[in-house]
């Protein structure tokens, strides 16, 4: 029997167990408990904790630690992650692995404290300057969050990329029973700074951006090929498929189950890796599917773009793509069922 555990605490402890030994950041609701936990927990595992003067300083400390080969993590929310983009593009450029947690809160500008999914576009496209991608992992439960945290570190290390742990405010604040992953005692990455210049570096004027671009694409293609993750339910014969992630993804599975029981052929794809987007899931969908419906917690609909693009590529027939952005919070099972009813009754216009 597992004990009730708060999301942010479970996320922080899972990171420690996954091998995180540097935390640097700045508090922001609703991610702050992660930092508070790290402030004392890091010392217990001989790690480094720095309360940075700003979000920007925090992510730059992550760069410093990662450059030394230390598994590094920072956490923030919407506006804080905006400030971190500078560091995330630098990490990507230097091919330094790190984990950045975004406990998303709703809104533009400083936003609000509501739980939301409004940062999908930014996280999946790489929000800083240049041309890079981050691996984006989206948990739908606290148990899954702890598992994805371990994966976040492993994928960051494997591909020398930034893993963005894109959750929602509510997941950090809620409690569920949860079994934590085992403690790992990992050595530092072998290529970090040691002061002896053991690992040579190409000087800034000797870099060849064209060659680097080829390698970058090869790497991203490997990630796309190997690291797509999703949970699918009853999509092989579905007339309609709900697509969602995180807490709305979880609620969508509940809604689809109830709709099935009521006789509707509804399936669900719950996206776990928002990047690489789980295109392979769509290859398993009924080729005669009538529509995809994204259930999102944002204002304008963002996931819908990836769904429509993927549908275009994987489903031979033209398929309608609908989107119901619930703005913020976790849409209720009842509300999602109503979204579906709106679609089949012609009360929701397709986006694509």
């Amino acid at each position, binding site marked *: *029997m597992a004990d009730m555990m708060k999301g942010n605490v479970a996320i922080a402890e899972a990171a420690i167990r996954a091998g995180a030994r540097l935390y640097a950041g700045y508090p922001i609701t609703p991610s702050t408990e992660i930092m508070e936990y790290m402030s004392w927990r890091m010392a217990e595992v001989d790690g480094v904790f720095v309360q940075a003067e700003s979000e920007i300083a925090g992510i730059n400390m992550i760069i410093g630690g990662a450059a030394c080969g230390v598994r590094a993590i920072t956490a923030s929310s919407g506006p804080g992650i905006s400030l971190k983009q500078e560091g995330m593009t630098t990490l990507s450029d230097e091919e330094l692995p790190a984990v950045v947690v975004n406990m998303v809160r709703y809104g533009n500008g400083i936003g609000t404290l509501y739980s939301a999914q409004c940062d999908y576009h930014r996280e999946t496209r790489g929000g800083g300057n240049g041309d890079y991608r981050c691996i984006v992992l989206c948990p739908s439960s606290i148990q899954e969050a702890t598992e994805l945290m371990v994966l976040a570190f492993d994928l960051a290390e494997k591909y020398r990329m930034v893993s963005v742990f894109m959750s929602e405010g509510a997941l950090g604040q809620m409690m*569920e029973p949860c079994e934590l992953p085992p403690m790992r005692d990992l050595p530092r990455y072998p290529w970090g700074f040691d002061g002896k210049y053991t690992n040579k570096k190409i000087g800034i004027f000797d870099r060849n951006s064209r060659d680097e671009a080829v390698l970058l694409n090869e790497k991203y293609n490997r990630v796309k090929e190997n690291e797509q993750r999703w949970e699918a339910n009853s999509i092989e014969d579905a007339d309609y498929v709900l697509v969602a992630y995180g807490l709305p993804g979880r609620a969508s599975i509940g809604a689809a189950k109830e709709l099935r029981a009521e006789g509707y052929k509804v399936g669900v794809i719950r996206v776990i890796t928002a990047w690489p987007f789980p295109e392979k899931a769509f290859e398993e969908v009924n080729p005669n599917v009538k529509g995809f419906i994204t259930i999102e917690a944002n204002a304008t609909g963002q996931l819908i773009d990836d769904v429509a693009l993927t549908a275009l590529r994987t489903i031979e027939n033209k398929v309608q793509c609908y989107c119901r952005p619930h703005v913020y919070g976790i849409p209720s099972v009842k509300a999602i069922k109503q979204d579906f009813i709106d679609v089949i009754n012609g009360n929701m216009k397709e986006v694509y």
Partner: protein
Amino acid sequence: MKECIFAGFGGQGVLTVGLLISQMATFKDYHATWIPQYGSAMRGGTANCTVKFGEEYIYNPSQEEPDILLAMNNPSLVKFLPLVKSGGTIVVNSDLVDSKLNTRKDINLVEVPCMTLAKEIDHPRGANVIMAGAIVKLSGDFTEKEAIDGMNDMFRKKGKEKFQELNTKALSTGYNYI
């Protein structure tokens, strides 16, 4: 699956009651979720949390339609009254809550003078645990022993076992009041 909302002033221990019930549920190997209202919304004195538990996986942990509402003060009753499922139960702290504020006929309103009871058992801070006992009985999901074991397990893990005797008494008081 059961949904409960626990609401009251900050300091009345409603988040703890919610946690107690959810922990009792996990003690029984049920699925359980606990979700608070958080952030700036929690400033200014009111607090609430939603707990769901049951044998089935909980697809949506957030507030929908509670089977049980605990209202420890008047604003909580007024605020959450419309959400309660038809046929549901509202437990009010009758030492503070004016039951005439209830306008619904399709729910079962239960008055528990938890503050008075707490004084009687000489555990003035145990009013919330008394309410937990009452809710355990009303929900019908746990025996008195399961509830006590679940609660004591939780407090023990939090290093608060020194209140075990008092809390056990409070929980039984609430349970047997119903």
